[in-house]
């Protein structure tokens, strides 16, 4: 079974600064995807960024980037130029690639607060 661990229950950052959220995972699979989802107070689940395990290059989406260390099974999210709208719960998630099912396994989440 796959497990996802987010060791930071809460974090805070000043507006315009940079913050990094940590995530580690455990799996015996070689092909998989990793995701960061954002859940603002509206509770909507919003995909922030995706990383395919076979790709060595770290994914980037505007102000969001990841540091994917496959050997260490680490997948951190860096948010640059933090904005008030980034305040949300952030979930790291894992998905096995291939087969007939693509269910997501989530970590416990990190509550990020961006302060003005």
């Amino acid at each position, binding site marked *: 079974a796959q497990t996802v661990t987010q060791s930071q229950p809460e974090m805070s950052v000043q507006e315009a600064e940079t913050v990094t959220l940590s995530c580690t995972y455990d799996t015996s699979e070689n092909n998989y995807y990793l995701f960061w989802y954002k859940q603002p107070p509206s*509770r909507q*689940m919003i*995909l922030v960024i*995706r990383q395919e395990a076979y790709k060595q290059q770290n994914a980037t989406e505007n102000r969001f980037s990841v540091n994917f260390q496959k050997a260490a099974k680490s997948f951190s999210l860096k948010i640059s130029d933090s904005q008030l709208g980034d305040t949300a719960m952030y*979930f790291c998630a894992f998905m096995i690639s291939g087969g007939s099912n*693509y*269910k*997501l396994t989530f*970590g416990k989440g990190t509550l990020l607060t961006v302060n003005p």
Partner: protein
Amino acid sequence: AAGVIQSPRHLIKEKRETATLKCYPIPRHDTVYWYQQGPGQDPQFLISFYEKMQSDKGSIPDRFSAQQFSDYHSELNMSSLELGDSALYFCASSHSGTGAYEQYFGPGTRLTVT
């Protein structure tokens, strides 16, 4: 662009009652996933369907059942409701051919059992 639709958005039931949650996937999406998110918890996978057949099952109680219909919408039926069933229920959909790994989430149905 069309998104995943869930109805109702809010539902209040009493213990031992039944509830039916509906999910309408994005057009041409053939796979539907159901997740349960308890208060202060992470979403937990319940069940999934691909082409109207159950494709995987997670931590779904026996009191719950679900199916996917010919138009690909899905319903989650919950019977003998318990206080612990109070949660946010998400439906997500994906297309197996073009983006099986890309799950699009609906806004969720908030179920409160009193």
